[in-house]
């Protein structure tokens, strides 16, 4: 081969894909499904990470005041709370303040809370900063003992629970990546094997007239690569759509758990899809044509 004629391999590869169109379609569909399932779990894990970071950035302990208590009385509790053991600072957050913060967080969906000014479901609260994390548990206990305090939510409770969920999601993602990766590899490999079977006469003649092994293999590698590429690009856009739709549904349901916007992860997601799709496609075809190493 004097000059690498890529257009020849491309034409051969594309021709091969369409010569057994149904099988190629099935391979792309299965691979897309695998990518979307894996992608979804990774996005869930990513959102949990994001939530953990968000919770950690907020105050350490939140003390909710009994809703029976008028705002003025709640505000007057400041000294009692600030003098509890190990408390360095207590910041009062009125329920009106909490509502406007919530509204800000919702962003474009803020109309969801429009009717709530007059009948605010949120409670007055204090954000507590502590002196020494060592006595974290004692501080939470001490705050709970104050009679007007309805509940104490510590950051640790939430992050502990999120971290547990995340480790489950991570484990499931890992298992899925391995399993679905294998499934994809298998189906791509079989599609390409079918292609080599349809073209076995041509391959025999190519060998007879002195085509190199790489020359014979190249169109099949191109085929696997293209199948992977098609799967990853379509899977990416499908994932985008699913995420966008889910994000809307979730933020309408529970505003606090609004998903990270897709634009924030789209680049990483695209690279992940592209890399894994083309890798599995190429590896699958190489697996299928191993035997052509032997003349």
């Amino acid at each position, binding site marked *: 081969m*004097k000059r690498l004629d890529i257009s020849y391999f491309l034409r051969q590869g594309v021709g091969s894909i369409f010569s057994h169109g149904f099988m190629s379609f099935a391979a792309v569909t299965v691979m897309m499904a695998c990518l979307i399932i894996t992608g979804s779990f990774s996005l869930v894990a990513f959102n949990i990470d994001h939530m953990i970071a968000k919770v950690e950035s907020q105050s350490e302990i939140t003390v909710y005041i009994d809703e029976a208590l008028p705002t003025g009385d709640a505000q007057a509790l400041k000294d009692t709370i600030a003098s509890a053991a190990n408390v360095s600072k207590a910041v009062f957050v009125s329920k009106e303040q909490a509502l406007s913060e919530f509204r800000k967080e919702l962003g474009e969906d803020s109309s969801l809370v429009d009717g709530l000014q007059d009948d605010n479901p949120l409670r007055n609260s204090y954000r507590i900063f502590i002196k020494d994390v060592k006595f974290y548990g004692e501080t939470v206990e001490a705050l709970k003992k104050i009679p007007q305090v309805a509940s104490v939510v510590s950051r640790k409770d939430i992050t502990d629970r999120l971290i547990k969920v995340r480790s489950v999601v991570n484990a499931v993602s890992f298992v899925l990546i391995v399993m679905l990766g294998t499934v994809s590899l298998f189906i791509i490999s079989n599609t390409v094997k079918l292609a080599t079977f349809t073209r076995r006469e041509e391959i025999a003649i*190519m060998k007879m*007239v*002195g085509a190199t*092994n790489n020359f014979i293999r190249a169109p099949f590698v191109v085929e696997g690569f293209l199948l992977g590429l098609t799967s990853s690009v379509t899977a990416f856009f499908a994932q985008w759509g699913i995420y966008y739709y889910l994000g809307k549904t979730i933020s309408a349901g529970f505003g606090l758990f609004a998903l990270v916007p897709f634009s924030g992860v789209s680049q990483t997601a695209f690279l992940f899809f592209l890399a894994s799709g083309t890798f599995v496609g190429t590896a699958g075809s190489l697996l299928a044509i191993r035997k052509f190493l032997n003349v």
Partner: protein
Amino acid sequence: MVRLIDVHKTYDNGTKALKGLTLRIDDGEFVFLVGPSGSGKSTVTKMLTAEIRPTEGRVVVNNYTVNNIKSSEIPYLRRTLGVVFQDFRLIDKKSVYENVAFAMRAVGAPQRVIKKRVPYMLDLVGLLHKARRCPNELAGGEQQRVAIARALVNNPSLIIADEPTGNLDPARSLEIMMLLERINSLGTTVLVVTHERELVNRFSKRVVALDGGMIISDRMGGYYQNETARH
């Protein structure tokens, strides 16, 4: 150029196909390799194309030593050879033109060279007017001529034809042999495997007779003789 020196071939199942074969074919020769079925003729041709390797002895083809040829070198050995089979081995989906062009594409020939060379080859075998036909629209003799054009298109120095007339009637068989003779006269070495005695005896060529994996006769301008074949 072919050199076989004391070549033995034992297949994996224990069949001794060749038992000490020594044969030399120089450039420009025309050789008939004859012998009854099972005498080892195809084993010789497969060794020349490096499909199989000798168990013992030495095989050299166009300066490649088949005994220890690297698999990456085999394609380059095959580019110096043109192989023709009894069953033609054409691709039915491709036109006559495409079948011949395919052999050039397989070795990376540029399109502009292919465009010139393929019609020239089809003209040489007398089938230029059927270039757009498919192989199954042609008669057997014509299909074999396409296969010969394909074998020649990459300009090999040696043509190996293993029973090229096995599927053809006597008149077509004679045409094919005359075509191979003409190709030889243009400078290509030709080795024809056959067991058709009458056909061989119409030409006055070198005849190498095999039986039981051994050469039992090798004569210039020789006959394919009854007694030797029935040994």
